[in-house]
């Protein structure tokens, strides 16, 4: 467990001047070009930021000068934004690459998330299988949001649900990643799921 500062440290020289908000995280997943960054940017109060969420796997013995450690480094861009709810509460939205080969980095990003939104392009449904599987396995509340490119969806929601084979309780909806209100409503569907689970 990473040491956490106590809530108060009366009179201590290390007392933080500012109390940070509680950060709540949601994950926006899906294949490349499906509208993750667009969705985050539509509702974030800041321009989406990008960080290199690199994973470096190092064999034991980093400090052993006689052996060059075997490293494999994969660098993946991760876009994110945030919404300040009030001074004590801030929502973070992290867009994560949805491809199967990036599955290993999801734990790093998804750890502690209250829910996920899986964005789907009906022309490339299979791009989202890995994300759907991941949220199902980790039992993280999520919804499937079909991005209506140019207002058009190529398959009905029933077809999408059938193709993805998601549980009946998983909401499948259509949204427009470019519209703030539409993204907000999709996130609300996920949060309602999370709330229902926390109250169950």
């Amino acid at each position: 467990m990473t040491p956490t500062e106590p809530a108060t440290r009366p009179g201590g020289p290390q007392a933080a001047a500012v109390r940070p908000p509680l950060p709540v995280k949601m994950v926006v997943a899906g294949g490349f070009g499906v509208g993750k960054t667009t969705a985050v940017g539509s509702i974030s109060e800041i321009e989406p930021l990008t960080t290199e969420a690199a994973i470096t796997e190092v064999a034991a013995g980093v400090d052993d000068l006689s052996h060059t450690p075997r490293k494999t480094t994969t660098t993946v861009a991760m876009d994110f934004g945030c919404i300040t709810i009030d001074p004590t509460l801030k929502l973070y939205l992290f867009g994560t690459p949805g491809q199967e080969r990036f599955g290993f980095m999801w734990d790093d990003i998804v750890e502690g998330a209250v829910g996920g939104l899986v964005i789907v392009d009906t022309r490339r449904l299979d791009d989202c299988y890995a994300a759907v599987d991941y949220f199902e396995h980790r039992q993280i509340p999520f919804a499937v949001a079909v991005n209506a490119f140019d207002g058009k969806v190529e398959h009905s929601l029933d077809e999408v649900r059938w193709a993805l084979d998601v549980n009946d309780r998983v909401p499948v909806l259509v949204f427009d990643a470019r519209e703030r209100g539409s993204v907000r409503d999709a996130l609300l569907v996920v949060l309602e799921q999370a709330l229902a689970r926390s109250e169950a």
Partner: protein
Amino acid sequence: MADGGTPPGADGTGPDPVGPAPAVRPFLVTAGRVAPSASDRTMPVETQVVATAEGLAELDGLAFEQHDIVAACRRPQSIAEIAARLRLHLNVVRILAEDLRAAGQLTVHVPDTGATHDASVLRKLIEGLRAIPDSRGVLRDTD
């Protein structure tokens, strides 16, 4: 700084990167460490970090990345924001934040999963989100 962990091909003397940080060089500033040593668990990307009064007072004595991180944390920041704004690796920020915390220059607030998943917090989030107008400035019907 010891560079026992310098990956092959790392070039610590090159010009500052203009684009996103290259994959290997940033770990020079952590002496090759790729994970914070004092923790069993990785800091979540949304972990909040704030400069202490002590850290800000000692700012002039801090070098490079350490200086930039403490300076950036006058207001609370997530480690993801620090990484993005300073063009540092997320894992570099994790390591340096842990170092700076140990030195008393930062406070690190790892979110408590019990708190973030609490029904009252989720309700507050839902209320807050509902209050966001859509692009046409129309409030969502809260039925």
